[in-house]
């Protein structure tokens, strides 16, 4: 089932020396442009393949060849069938709305003439700004250039804004007469359900609601395969050695089985066995929302960035009770190192200590306990599910190197090097990408 992943398919085709010359060039060409439709064609064929893939490599290649030529034939038809612009994918979470927007760069003069003014204005508005209103932000560093989607080449933009500002967004959509474009708005996340009627009533927009975990997985698999440089996936080398702990690219070859840990407001942990075969193993309510919520209450901060900033300047060991605070050193009887946290916020049981700590210390302690707890649950799930590779995603990890290093450390240390923590650059946007993919290739 590995060929279900486009990334995987690329490598296989390179390995296949006896491949038909006539087939290879367009295949390579389309792959190099990361043509989503090609990948998807493989996928739709893959469904029939999936039942017969237990056979040897040769027969797989034969089928692949057939499917590739079919793909080429279908490109033309798809060009006519592809949805009208604009292309959006949306993920409305508990805290943030994530929006991906595909900006076509291959618009012909003819097209330009036909393009309605509304569409143009939306494109210009989104691409010429990096901030929208008071709270909307475009993550420019994540923008994917020269991406080919359904035969069209363009840039993929990543935009986010707080879920509580959704009314303002809907107002804008209404002002810009978004509904006149007769586009389907593919949306996932809980908000797709919660705000469906608001979309209809306030902006005259009909949502196509999609399951958030389906979208998450297809988004992860697509972005990982579509982006080659800089590598989408990375890890921290030497996580147990702060001096030499550095970010390193990682190639997600043979990704399955993998544990996908999505840390948004809450946390979902998925065991993924193939593109279409996954289960939500468990989740925890101690997630990004808990970090921010507690930080707001404890320090009076008002944003994630502010909370992280404070955390980076604090010292959690003043707040937490460490093993050495209880045992004077390591608890050797049970192999617990003295530096391990015995009780998160444990020192705060004591009045004097409550009075001697700073807000920064509290922010740091909150970050450390939430992160370590996620690490701990993840490690146990990985053991129970017998999975060694863990990919952490979600907006909790945005600009949060502290947590990523902590997770890397925790995974490595407590598993004695058995588990590896992996991260993806587009950490919080995969659901939205998955929604966009659904627009282009409805399953």
């Amino acid at each position, binding site marked *: 089932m590995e060929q279900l992943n486009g990334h995987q398919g690329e490598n296989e085709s390179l390995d296949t020396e006896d491949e038909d010359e006539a087939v290879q060039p367009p295949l390579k060409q389309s792959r190099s442009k990361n043509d989503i439709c090609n990948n998807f064609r493989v996928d739709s064929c893959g469904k029939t393949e999936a039942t017969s893939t237990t056979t040897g490599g040769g027969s797989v290649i034969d089928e692949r060849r057939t499917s590739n030529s079919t793909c080429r034939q279908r490109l033309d038809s798809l060009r006519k069938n592809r949805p009208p612009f604009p292309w959006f994918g949306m993920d409305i979470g508990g805290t943030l709305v994530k929006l991906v927007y595909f900006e076509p760069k291959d618009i012909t003069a003819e097209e330009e003439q036909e393009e309605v003014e509304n569409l143009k204005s939306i494109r210009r508005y989104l691409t010429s700004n990096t901030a929208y209103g008071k709270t909307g932000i475009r993550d420019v560093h994540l923008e994917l250039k020269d991406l080919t989607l359904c035969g069209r080449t363009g840039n993929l933009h990543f935009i986010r804004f707080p879920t509580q500002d959704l009314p303002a967004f809907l107002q804008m959509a209404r002002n810009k007469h978004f509904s006149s474009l007769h586009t389907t708005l593919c949306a996932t996340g*809980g908000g797709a359900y919660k705000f469906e009627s608001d979309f209809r009533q306030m902006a005259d927009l009909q949502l196509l609601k999609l399951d958030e975990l389906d979208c998450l997985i297809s988004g992860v698999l697509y972005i990982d395969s579509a982006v080659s440089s800089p590598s989408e996936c990375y890890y921290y080398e030497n996580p147990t050695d702060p001096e030499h702990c550095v970010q390193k690219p990682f190639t997600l070859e043979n990704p399955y089985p993998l544990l996908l840990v999505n840390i948004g407001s809450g946390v979902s942990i998925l065991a993924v066995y193939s593109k279409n075969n996954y289960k939500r193993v*468990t989740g925890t309510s101690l997630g990004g*929302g808990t970090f921010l919520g507690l930080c707001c209450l404890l320090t009076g901060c008002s944003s994630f960035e502010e909370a992280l900033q404070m955390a980076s300047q604090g010292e959690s060991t003043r707040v937490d009770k460490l093993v050495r605070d209880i045992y004077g050193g390591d608890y050797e009887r049970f192999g617990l190192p003295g530096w391990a946290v015995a009780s998160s916020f444990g020192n705060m049981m004591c009045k004097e200590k*409550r009075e001697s700590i700073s807000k920064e210390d509290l922010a740091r302690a909150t970050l450390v306990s939430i992160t370590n707890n996620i690490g701990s649950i993840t490690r146990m799930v990985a053991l129970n599910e017998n999975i060694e590779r863990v990919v952490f995603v979600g907006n909790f990890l945005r600009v949060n190197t502290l947590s990523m290093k902590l997770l890397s450390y925790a995974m490595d240390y407590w598993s004695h090097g058995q588990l590896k923590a992996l991260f993806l650059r587009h950490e919080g946007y995969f659901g939205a990408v998955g929604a966009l993919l659904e627009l282009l290739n409805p399953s």
Partner: protein
Amino acid sequence: MTRLSRGTRPMFTSKMAAECQRVDRSSHSMDKSITLPADEIFRNLENAKRFAIDIGGSLTKLAYYSTVQHKVAKVRSFDHTAKETEGEPLYEISMQEEVTARLHFIKFENAYIETCLDFIKDHLVNTETKVIKATGGGAHKFKDLIEKKLKLRVDKEDEMTCLIKGCNFVLRNIPHEAFVYVKHADSEFRFQNTHPDIFPYLLINIGSGVSIVKVESEDKFERVGGSSIGGGTFWGLGALLTKTKRFDELLQLASKGQHTSVDMLVKDIYGGSYGSLGLTGDLIASSFGKSATADNEFSKEDMAKSLLHMISNDIGQLACLYARLHNLTRVYFGGFFIRGHPVTMHTITYSINFFTKGEVQALFLRHEGYLGTIGAFLKGAEEDNPNQYSWGENYAGSSGLMSVSPDLNPMQRTRSGTFPFDMLEMDRLERQLVNLPLLQDPSSYIPDTVDLSEDALAREYWLYCFEEALDGVVKRAVASQPDLPEAAERAEKFRHKYRHKLQTLRQQPFAYGSLTVRSLLDTREHCLNEFNFPDPYSKIKQRENDIALKYFQKAIKSLEELSWEQRQFALVRGLLAGNVFDWGAKAVSDVLESDPEFGFEQAKRQLEERPWLVDAYDQWLERLKGPPHKCALFFVDNSGIDIILGVFPFIRELLCRGTEVVLASNSSPALNDVTNSELQILTQRIAAMDLVIQSAVKEDRLTLVQSGSSSPCLDLSRLDKELAGVVRERHTDLVVIEGMGRAIHTNYYAMLSCESLKMAVIKNSWLADRLGGKLFSVVFKYEVPPSHKTTTQDHVPGTPS
């Protein structure tokens, strides 16, 4: 079987009297603000040795071993070979002092530690004690104080090792130690039957952090994991968020709060449930998720509640992950986060149910707070081999679950100015107790027929019944010691104590595990013993035995005149009629006290005519036509007519058939039940009159064993180890259980792996009513285990043909 010889001691020595005076003097020098209730706490300090202390964050738990002097009723046979005069009693009864071992555990707030150490110092006599074993986080802090005050060397023991040792000890020795907590049920506490093999289990200790320990055997355990998010997180974070300092106040806040205003629920994100994943709308998606976006103020209560949910759910989730990884289903929770707090027991239970979909139950322990100190004590007492003995909870000296414990309601207590404490006392049992080898499934065996904690009507009735009977018990207790003038005073103390226990049980039926008729009876026995009324029925039993013995030969003679089939019925009827004589049952004691002429024949007439309420007599008769049993184990009931004119003729017939007989009787007195020592004398006397019995005794075909019990009821999972040995050696294939206490209140549903007879006359109209019968209805239950293929299988027991 030989009785264990016990040392006897004079009741008071002059030294002890001097000690008593010293107690009074020293109590004046204590802190004026609090008074230690000297006759209730730190009892038997004069004999105390082997101290252990567990000092936690707020509570101190002290343990010591002491010897307790008790009066016991001893029977001694007169020399009957010389002469046998009319009117002279069969045996003499004397009160003697007996020394038994007891473990004392006391829990109090750290604030009182100095007062308590002073008290102990002033009362401690034993100078052999040099060391005090210590554990717990506070042991270090108070080390100097303890060494200075008590002049004992503090010897520190590993906390986790003590905890596990203590846990194994209570699980092994206290039958209803573990319970499941069900918040909204009629009875919040569902006590668990202790599995004969307590291992393996997972212990989740929620102190300031969380430790997860897998225990595989007495000495093999491993800390498999843990979490830093524990009680300290609740307390520390809670204190920061709510400015509330005390742990229990935080819990009180939490119990009044609404977490939904602080937490982001699934429905806050989805507008409803997340159907495809089966996540309901009320599920917490993100703890404290709302406090990140909403600007409004949150109430202390709501934040505390949210925090409580967050931490409980997190611990529950980890516990489940570890339980699954190690494939364990028995998961016990302990630590100060749990300790007696319904709020946290509920949230942890909820979390475990959620994450395991009900596959794993969260188990809690009644004496969880004492585990550390019990373990530390056991470490120090290893040379005494405490694990070689069986121990029993003394209901008279233990506070019981959710007593006015120092864990709860600190505010209320501080104001009252009294010294709050909680106690546990465990008596060393003379005999090591084991399962009856003939139990079909020891792990599912429940002795008691009705759990009064789950049956409000039955509970009301029996509590009332025991309260009503109290006057009579007090009267009889005084009458049993005519030579002791202070008996009346002691009897009043007994009345006060037992009435107080009954009141406690009315409020907290769960105090000592499941409330049952057995536990009510046992509590009464413990209270009687506490005030030196070891055997209030001794005189009555003596008189009854004397009367019955006179009729023995006549009874045998009239039985022998009957045809075989008539005789079998007469034997069963005789046994049942004999069982009517039971001073324990109020209806009978009324008749007996008002009409002393009420005789054996009259008792037979009182019996219900066949078909009986439960009547398997025909099947039994059929069985008797078959080959004899190899060996019958007979649990006997009352003294007097019951044992002499009911049981002996019955077993005599069995012996004649070639069946060996083992008579199991109580080790110590309970009501008018015949004790092992009385039975030995009776058997001697009967053997002297009857050749069948005589030769059976001589040839060791009739054996007397003690049950190991001193209860009017019978727990087949706690029987004398020697009895179990005899049962096995002799290939016992028939068990006879006689009497209301042993065959109705307990064991009515007990499943044995061999044939069994359960016989009783219902001498309580309420119970008769419950069972659909009337007063003096007969239960004659003959059961054959399903695996046995016998000729009697075509009859359904209980349906007379």
